[in-house]
């Protein structure tokens, strides 16, 4: 059975002016917030739990469960929306922020009602400056119309939202590094526990969610948690944005229910591989997710589905690689990225990432020896599990997969004294 595209989130194609307040209201905007304001906070959390929406930032933690961790109490409590979108290959949040900002604002206000939050920050990567300016205009319009600020729509709920710009550090996408950065410090991840739900921004209870997770919340309230869950698969509910980039005929952003088949996505919706070439590999969900070979992609795009083939759903944005591409080059770009972005506070990550990048560079230049292949795998394995945050692992996993699955290409580089392929 072929799964058709849906348009719960990806809906701006035929809806004009969605990014303006009037256009948004015309599409039923803020109805879910009105509903939420009449519900008991615990009942909203219960709906989000029923929806089983797993975190869209890549880790897949159920949003409702996370909301439930925030202890009851008074005083400031924060929402942080992660709009850092830096994982290479990923391009979904930028579209949501640009095309449907009020959805995110509405989702934020609902989260505030559900968990009892007093203020929120949208942490956007610095490169999104122009989007940030427009988003601030949307916030101002929402505030003026009473959807944010003091006593939202006369309900007594007070919650305001601000944009905070990062400044070019991928690590600030990691939630605790993000909090450090929000507080004006270098973005170095914190040790957990304490978890942000208990002690987050400004040492107060904090909910951190990805842009897409928050954008889906108004949908959950509109159709109900159970109905949202049923759109997807058991335990991994709803719909999600999926991306295609690289050597595919129809790159871009798509929306499907959870469980869409990855192979079908690439070959049917994506129109197959460019120039009629054969498929060589797929990086399924951002550059930290281990590459899959063509015979491994007949799987449902769910958190568990990708895990069953030794990879991860990640951000759901897949990079498609055709025959003729040099996989040593691909590995080099991936390894260099993480080496550049390591915050440096853990030795295995700092030294290991730099070492992997310089060793792969030696293969690319044709000066490596065959023995360095196993050394590379050893270094990758030694990073894993010995770091403060998951970046070390995010660097080691894709390198390990590329070297293991395309070992012959690393060997060919040694024998040829450089890159034997012309393409790439």
């Amino acid at each position, binding site marked *: 059975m072929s799964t058709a595209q849906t348009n719960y989130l990806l809906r701006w194609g035929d809806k004009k002016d969605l990014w303006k307040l009037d256009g948004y209201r015309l599409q039923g905007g803020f109805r879910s917030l009105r509903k939420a304001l009449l519900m008991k906070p615990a009942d909203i959390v219960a709906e989000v739990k029923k929806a089983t929406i797993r975190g869209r930032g890549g880790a897949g933690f159920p949003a409702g469960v996370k909301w439930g961790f925030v202890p009851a109490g008074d005083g*400031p409590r924060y929402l942080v929306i992660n709009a850092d*979108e*830096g*994982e*290479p*290959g*990923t*391009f979904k*949040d*930028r579209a949501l922020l640009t095309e449907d900002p009020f959805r995110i604002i509405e989702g934020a206000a609902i989260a505030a009602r559900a968990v009892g939050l007093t203020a929120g920050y949208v942490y956007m*990567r*610095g*490169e*999104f*400056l*122009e989007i940030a300016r427009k988003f601030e205009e949307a916030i101002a319009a929402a505030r003026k119309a009473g959807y944010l600020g003091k006593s939202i729509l006369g309900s007594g709920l007070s919650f305001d939202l*601000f944009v*905070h*710009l*990062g*400044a*070019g*550090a*991928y690590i600030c996408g990691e939630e605790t590094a993000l909090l450090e*950065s*929000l*507080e*004006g*410090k*270098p*973005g170095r991840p914190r040790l957990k526990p304490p978890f942000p739900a208990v002690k987050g921004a*400004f040492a107060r209870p904090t909910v951190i969610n990805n842009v897409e997770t928050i954008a889906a919340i108004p949908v959950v309230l509109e159709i109900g948690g159970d109905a949202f869950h049923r759109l997807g698969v058991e335990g991994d509910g709803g719909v999600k944005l999926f*991306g*295609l*980039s*690289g*050597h595919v005929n129809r*790159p*871009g*952003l798509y929306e499907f229910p959870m469980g869409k088949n990855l192979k079908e996505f690439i070959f049917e919706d994506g129109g197959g591989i460019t120039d009629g070439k054969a498929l060589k590999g797929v*990086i399924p969900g951002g*550059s930290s997710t281990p590459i899959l070979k063509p015979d491994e992609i007949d799987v449902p795009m769910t958190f568990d589905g990708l895990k069953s083939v030794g990879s991860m759903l990640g951000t759901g*944005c897949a*990079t498609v*690689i*055709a025959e003729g*591409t040099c996989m040593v*080059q*691909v590995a080099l*770009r*991936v390894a260099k*990225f993480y080496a*550049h*972005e390591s915050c440096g506070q853990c030795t295995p990550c700092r030294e290991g990432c730099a070492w992997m990048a310089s060793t792969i560079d030696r293969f690319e230049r044709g000066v490596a020896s065959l023995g360095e292949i196993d050394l590379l795998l050893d270094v990758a394995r030694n990073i894993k599990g010995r770091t403060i945050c998951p970046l070390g692992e995010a660097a080691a996993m894709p390198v390990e997969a590329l070297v293991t699955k395309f070992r012959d290409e690393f060997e060919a580089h040694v024998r040829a004294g450089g890159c034997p392929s012309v393409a790439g």
Partner: protein
Amino acid sequence: MQLEFSADNEARLGRLLAEYPDRQACLLPALYIAQEQFGYLTHEVMELVAERIGMPPGEVLSTATFYTMFRKRPTGKYHIQVCGNVSCFLRGSDRLMTALSKTLGIGDGETTEDGLFTLSAVQCLAACGTAPALQVNDTYYEEMTPEKVVELVGRLREEAK
């Protein structure tokens, strides 16, 4: 001469303080305001920021140096930033870099003598579905080709006249 923020920027700083529960949290936005006004962040600029926020200058320096988007030296009027990550690489970003190097006569990280252009290879810009992508200052250009980048440089040269 003693550095000062413009009256407008003083007002912006004042508004910032109301958005955060703690002064240090204004540091990143304040550094952006300073960079906008002074072009890049010298020690004097960072000291001014430190004084306004009420933080030790050393801490301002350590935060400013952590982030690549805070410039510590002059940059061309147009900063061309070409993504070289995997999705853009697969769609020909190396050819964009070559074409730009050739037409500008500079390499990665360099600035033209007239101070008009700086060229940098950058990491993924979250525009992979419309690769290859680049930014000129804060504006995105997507689905680029070597021809289009050369034309873009021509247009910017005209605009700067």
